[in-house]
C-alpha cells in the first residue's frame, strides 16, 4: 500500500474543521440526554460522587423504583388517553374545515378563516382563566375532557391552515369531475380528497401528537387529580418529591424520553416534516 504522506490541501483542512464543529454540536445535543440514561443505571451515591462515570455493572434498581413509586406506567397511559382523542379530533375537524375553506366560496368564509388563523399567535394564557370556570360550569374540570376539548380547539388554527393550504394546491378539476359523476359533496370529500390528503394528514398527526404529548400548562391547571397526570406533569411532581435522589430522577427522565425517542427514530422523516411544517412552507 502506498504510504499516505500526502499533505492535506487547504480544502481538506476546511472539511476537517467543518466536521469537527458539526461533531461538537452533535455531542452537545445528545450528551445531556445520554448522561441521564447512564445515570439511571448507576446507584445514586456513585452518581453524586462522579456524574461522569459509567454504569459498570449496570444497576436496574432506579428504573424499577421509578416505575413503581413514580407511577410512570399510569402517566404513560394517561398521556395516551389525552393525546389520541386530541389528535383524532384535530385531524378530523381540520381536514373538513380546511377543505371547506379551500374549495367553497360561501358567505362568511373569510371571516371564519381569519378568526381561526388569529389563534396561531394567541397564547393559551389568554384564555386560561375564564376557561377554568367554563370547564367547571360544564362539569368537565378534572376530567380528561378538560384537556382534550381545549386541546382540540388550540390545535385547529395550525391544522386548518395546513389542510387549507394543501387542498388549495390540488387541481380544481378533481372536484369538478366528482360533481359531474354525481357524487355528493361529502362523498367527494371522503372518497376523492381525503385519500389524496394523506401526506398533509400524516404531517398534522405528528405535529399535533408532539404538541399534545408534551402539553404541560393545560393539565397542570385542569387535571389536578394525581391519578390523571400525563408524563410531563408526573415527571415534574416526581422531581419535586425526590429532589435529592438523582438516580431516581434520571430514571424518571429515562422512562419519559425512551418512548418518544424510539418513535422518533422509527418515523424520523414524518417527525421532521411534521414539526417543521409551519416554518418550511
Amino acid at each position, binding site marked *: 500500500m502506498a504510504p499516505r504522506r500526502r499533505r492535506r490541501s487547504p480544502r481538506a483542512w476546511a472539511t476537517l474543521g467543518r466536521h469537527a464543529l458539526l461533531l461538537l454540536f452533535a455531542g452537545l445535543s445528545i450528551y445531556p440526554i445520554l448522561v441521564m440514561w447512564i445515570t439511571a443505571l448507576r446507584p445514586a451515591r456513585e452518581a453524586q460522587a462522579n456524574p461522569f462515570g459509567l454504569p459498570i455493572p449496570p444497576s436496574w434498581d432506579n428504573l424499577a423504583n421509578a416505575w413503581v413509586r413514580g407511577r410512570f406506567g399510569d402517566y404513560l397511559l394517561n398521556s395516551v388517553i389525552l393525546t389520541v382523542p386530541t389528535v383524532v379530533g384535530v385531524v378530523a375537524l381540520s381536514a373538513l374545515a380546511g377543505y371547506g375553506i379551500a374549495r367553497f366560496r360561501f358567505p362568511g368564509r373569510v371571516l371564519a378563516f381569519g378568526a381561526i388563523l388569529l389563534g396561531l399567535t394567541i397564547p393559551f394564557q389568554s384564555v386560561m382563566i375564564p376557561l377554568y370556570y367554563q370547564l367547571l360550569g360544564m362539569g368537565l374540570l378534572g376530567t380528561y375532557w378538560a384537556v382534550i376539548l381545549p386541546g382540540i380547539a388550540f390545535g385547529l388554527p395550525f391544522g386548518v391552515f395546513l389542510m387549507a393550504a394543501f387542498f388549495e394546491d390540488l387541481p380544481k378539476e378533481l372536484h369538478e369531475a366528482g360533481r359531474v359523476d354525481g357524487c355528493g359533496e361529502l362523498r367527494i370529500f371522503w372518497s376523492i380528497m381525503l385519500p389524496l390528503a394523506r401526506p398533509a394528514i400524516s404531517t398534522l398527526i405528528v405535529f399535533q401528537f408532539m404538541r399534545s404529548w408534551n402539553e404541560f400548562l393545560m393539565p397542570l391547571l385542569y387535571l389536578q387529580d394525581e391519578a390523571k397526570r400525563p408524563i*410531563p406533569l408526573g415527571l415534574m411532581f416526581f422531581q419535586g418529591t425526590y429532589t435529592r435522589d438523582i438516580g431516581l430522577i434520571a430514571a424518571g427522565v429515562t422512562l419519559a424520553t425512551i418512548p418518544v425517542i424510539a418513535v422518533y427514530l422509527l418515523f424520523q422523516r414524518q417527525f421532521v416534516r411534521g414539526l417543521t411544517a409551519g416554518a418550511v412552507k
Partner: protein
Amino acid sequence: MTTSASRSGGLAAGRAAARRRGRFKTRERAGLWFVLPALVVYMLFFGLPFLATLWLSFTDWGGVGWPDWTGVANYDRLARDGAMWHALGNNLIWVVLGTAIPVLVGLVLAVMLWSDARGSVAYRTVFFLPVILSPVVIGVIWGWIYNPLFGLLNTGLRGIGLGAWAIGWLGEPGTALYAVLVTAIWSYFGFCIVVLFAGLQKVDPELVDAARVDGAGPVQRFRSVIVPQIAPVLTMVTVYTVIGGFNAFDMVWVMTQGGPNNASEVIATYTYEVAFRGNEYGYGATLSMVMSVVALLAAWATMRLRARIA
C-alpha cells in the same frame, strides 16, 4: 320557425344557466357545513373564553361572586406595575438572545451541512433530538446539570480547576434567567438547523459557483448569495422563536418558577402567579391580554421587518 326554435332554445339555455347559477350557490354554501364543526369547537373553547378574558381584564374578581367592573383600573395598575415591566424586560432579553443565537448557529451549521453532504442525515437526526422532547423533561435534565453540589457543570468546573466559578446557577439572581435561557437555546437550535437546511435545498448551487468564480469569498457568498435566497425561511424561523420567546412558560416554571425572588420571572409565569396564586383573576386577565397583544405585535413586526429588508 327556425328563429322561434332558436329563440326558445336560447331561452331554455338561459333558464338552465340561471338554474345552474342557483345550484352553484347552494353548492358553494355546502362549504359552511364543512367548516361548522371546527368553528363550533374553536369558538366554544377558544373564542368564548378569549372574549371573556377581554371582559375580565376590566374587572376586579377573586373567583367567587360576580366580577366588579372597574373600567381601566387594571390597565392603569399595569402601567405602574414594576414586577410586570421587569418580567417583560426578561422576555425581551429572552427574545433577543434566544432568537439571535440559535438562528445564527443554526444558519452556520445548516450551510456547513449543505455544502458537505457526508453524514448530513445522521447529523440532522442528532441535532433534532432535543426538539422532540417536552420542555418539562428538558427542564429536569438541565436542572440536574446546574445542580450546585453534584451537577455536571459544577463537577466539571471543579475538575478543571475552576471551582471558584461553580455557583448555584439557578439559585443566583444574576444567572438564573440566563441559565434557563441556555437550556431553551439548547432545545431549539436543532430546529433552526433542520428548517434552514430545508430552505437551503432551494438555493441554486450554480449561483454560488458563479459567485466563487467572480472572486467572492466564503463570507461574501454566504451573505450576498445564500442568505437572500433563504430569506423567507429565515423570517419564519425568526417569527417562531420570537413568539415562543414571549410565551415562554414550561421551562421557566419547571426550573426556577420565576425565582429566585423574581429574577427569572417572565410575563407568562407572572400571569400564572397573579391569577392562580394571588387569586386576582381580573388583573390576571389583564396580564393575559398583554401577552396576546405582545405576541400579535411581535409577529406583525417581524413580518414587516422582513418586508423592509428583502
